[in-house]
């Protein structure tokens, strides 16, 4: 009963330890990972915003360069000549002057109204034409002097990724030709160099989200296509994925879109790593909890177990139980309290017994007082003398014996020497012999050494009476023997007869099965009770039949006491 309780107690303790150590840890690690995730995202957003701003500024350079150059050319008086003459260094000079500072951005070319190339800052094969009914020149023609930006047909196979064109007019507003800027891969690379993080990628989309330039080849096809179809089919093209975060921003002057792709810092790998670290911490927490919890629970559960055991002994009326205490903590105090309680209980019990005994003695004294036995003794003495005078010796003997017995009974002493007890027993037997016409013989065997043994008075008379009244009826030559012997530290007095013997249900200690004695054997019961009360449970009467022949045998066992017994 105690084991599972202590186990469950221990388990509960362990569980509490685990909860106390693990829950804060788990919450903490979840919160930490969340916070770092948010923090990282913020950082990435800030980076992206800065980089996007830089890249937008770069694109602004493109959108500023073309109108600036166009304006500068239109202001030059040489411009009309450019579309009529061939290879004029003055016009080349004007073109280079107008594009000074932005020639690293693109090649600039002058096309006449039919789309034939006239001058260029780059190395272009002469005779190149651009259709005025198609593409950038068509758009520039219809834009009325505003610059236009177009990605040329990707199927053309040319190097140019982006074309810008502006219609050039004379002061009267008549169109003269076109200024075309052409950006190649190299131009874009130069334009964006150092303006974005090395792990990031850039994708430039045109107005309709077709790819124009990508910092990494291959991005063109896979990313641009998927972004466009997401945009058209209701997806969210800017949505972040497991691997990347995308930032998309429009550059209104050119109509281009800038896509900045950042690889996710908080990838699945980091999450996995964090999870593994958390798991490791949890395991460590479990081990530490168990290591701390087991001795503690043992320190708590062992004293409690001892206490429980003591309680169960107490329940079985063992008042000598004592719990050892091994500490001054609450459990030690509890053990001390228990010991104190047991001692108090024991004292209480003793007091109760004492009270009861005093009460009994008072009752006996009361009875003795009420009967006024001296009156009875004196009466018997008177009867003895009257019968002697009238020569009735039997009455004289009987009244003498009866008076002696009575005097013995009412004497104050409780313990008498065995010889005295035997003497009174003889008086009694004399009376009975007269009553029963001398039908039995009585033999006493008392060693001289035992004569002075102190015994409670009147313990042998009820045994002998029992033998006379129940054992010897109708038996001739019957003998009653009283024999006292020393057996170790005990005095053993045996009363045997050769009568009918005891019925089997009486064999053993008398009246153990009955709580209250009834019938004829009241005397035996009383003797047994007196012996037990005086000397303890191992003393008393033992009844059986004579093993050597017929008849009963009653043995009284009591401690060997030679001096006057002190009352306890």
């Amino acid at each position, binding site marked *: 009963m105690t084991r599972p309780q202590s186990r469950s107690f221990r388990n509960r303790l362990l569980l509490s330890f685990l909860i106390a150590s693990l829950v804060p840890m788990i919450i903490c690690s979840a919160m930490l990972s969340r916070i770092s995730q948010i923090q990282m995202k913020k950082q990435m957003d800030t980076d992206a915003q800065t980089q996007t701003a830089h890249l937008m500024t770069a694109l602004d350079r493109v959108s500023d360069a073309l109108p600036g150059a166009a304006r500068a050319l239109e202001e030059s008086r040489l411009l009309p000549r450019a579309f009529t003459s061939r290879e004029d260094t003055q016009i080349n000079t004007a073109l280079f002057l107008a594009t000074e500072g932005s020639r690293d951005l693109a090649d600039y070319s002058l096309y006449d109204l039919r789309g034939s190339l006239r001058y260029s800052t780059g190395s272009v094969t002469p005779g190149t034409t651009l259709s005025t009914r198609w593409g950038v020149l068509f758009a520039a023609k219809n834009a009325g002097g505003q610059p236009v930006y177009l990605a040329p047909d990707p199927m053309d196979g040319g190097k140019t990724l982006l074309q810008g064109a502006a219609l050039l007019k004379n002061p009267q507003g008549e169109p003269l030709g076109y200024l075309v800027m052409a950006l190649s891969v190299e131009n874009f690379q130069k334009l964006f160099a150092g303006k974005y993080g090395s792990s990031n990628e850039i994708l430039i989309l045109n107005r*309709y989200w077709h790819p124009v330039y990508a910092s990494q080849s291959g991005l063109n096809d896979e990313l641009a296509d998927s972004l466009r179809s997401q*945009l058209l089919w*209701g997806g969210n093209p800017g949505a972040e994925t497991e691997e990347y975060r995308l930032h998309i921003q429009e550059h209104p002057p050119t109509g281009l879109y800038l896509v900045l792709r950042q690889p996710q810092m908080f990838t699945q790998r980091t999450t996995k790593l964090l999870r593994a670290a958390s798991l490791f911490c949890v395991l460590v927490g479990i081990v530490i909890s168990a290591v701390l919890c087991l001795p503690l629970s043992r320190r708590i559960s062992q004293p409690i177990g001892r206490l429980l055991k003591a309680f169960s002994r107490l329940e079985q009326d063992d008042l000598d139980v004592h719990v050892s205490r091994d500490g001054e903590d609450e459990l030690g105090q509890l053990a001390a309290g228990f010991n104190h309680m047991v001692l108090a209980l024991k004292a209480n019990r003793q007091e109760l017994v004492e009270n009861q005994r005093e009460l009994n003695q008072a009752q006996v004294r009361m009875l003795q007082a009420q009967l006024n036995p001296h009156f009875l003794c004196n009466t018997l003495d008177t009867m003895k003398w009257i019968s002697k005078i009238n020569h009735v010796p039997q009455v004289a003997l009987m009244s003498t014996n009866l008076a002696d017995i009575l005097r013995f009974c009412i004497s104050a002493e409780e313990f008498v020497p065995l010889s005295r007890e035997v003497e009174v027993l003889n008086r009694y037997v004399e009376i009975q012999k007269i009553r029963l016409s001398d039908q039995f013989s009585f033999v006493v065997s008392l060693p001289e050494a035992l004569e002075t043994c102190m015994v409670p008075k009147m313990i042998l008379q009820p045994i002998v009476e029992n033998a006379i009244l129940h054992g010897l009826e109708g038996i001739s030559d019957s003998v009653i023997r009283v024999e006292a012997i020393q057996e170790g530290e005990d005095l053993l007095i045996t009363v045997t007869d050769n009568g009918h013997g005891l019925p089997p249900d009486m064999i053993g200690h008398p009246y153990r099965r009955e709580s209250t004695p009834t019938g004829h054997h009241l005397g035996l019961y009383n003797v047994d009770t007196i012996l037990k009360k005086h000397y303890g449970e191992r003393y008393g009467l033992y009844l059986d039949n004579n093993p050597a022949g017929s008849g009963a045998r009653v043995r009284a066992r009591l401690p060997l006491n030679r001096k006057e017994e002190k009352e306890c």
Partner: protein
Amino acid sequence: MKRRILILALLLPLLAGCAGKQPEPHPYTPAQDRRLVVYTSHKEEVYTPIIREFEERTGIWVDVVSGGTNELLQRIEQEQDAPKADVMFGGGVESLESYRDCFTPYICRESDHIRERFQSESGCWTPFSALPVVLVYHTKLVTAEAVTSWEDLESPAFRGKIAFADPQISGSSYTALVTRLQAGGGEESCLSALCAALDGRQLDSSGAVLSAVASGSALVGITLEETALQHIAAGEDIALVYPADGTSCVPDGSALVKGAPHGDNARLFLDFTVSADVQSMVGQRFCRRTVRADIPADPSLPPLATLNMVSYDVEWASRNRDRLLSDWSFLLGEVPS
């Protein structure tokens, strides 16, 4: 119990962080009236410049779905109840004709400028370019005199050495087959003669015809003028000949899908495909013949009027398609190898 509530209360903010947001349309998403969905069977180099230019000129976002003619037409037919496509761009007109139920007739704005012979009677398709059927041969392995007409293909020298795509798969191959039948000699005998000349061999795609001839694994091939010209321009040892006993010039075209979600934009696109700007590029860049009368043909190509043209009946071709093709596969399988 109270403790549990406390723990829940502690965990709640963590859980709340995981809740997703409602998706919103992206701010850059174009409006529906600025969109167009084009199904095209043209090659990428043909449709890309046209569609990019269309976008730039009109501001309409074009979503392109490319694929084989028959595949896309079947898809349009399946989607009849809820059409996704607005325009079918590409495919021989007899293919478009046979799916006429899926299309809405539309007479484009500049139809006056389109040559009479390329006009659609029903208006269910708009022509894009004219594509005569031609024969090609390897210039190093075959002399020019050896291949002049359909009948020359039946010569034992070419038996099993003719590159021809399966007309079940290739629309242009079917056009060529019908052209051969119209070129004379009786339908049945022509079919079996051609099957015998092929010796049971046919190619999986029309693109394979030119590579077979260029590599010399086939001596002659049957294809369209545009394809042949492109390969000649690429410098391969190939020459083309218009069959003396008759060729056809069936245009490919575009059609407006019935119930198109962006019908107005689709009409703009059809108009654009036959605009002078596109049509002049058709001739200049794609080795195709324009369908417009007001644009001069490429002077290096023989004018259509000088070629012997069979009377190609588009409606007949589309009506008899299944019958001819089953005859074809039957005869081709029967030829003893």
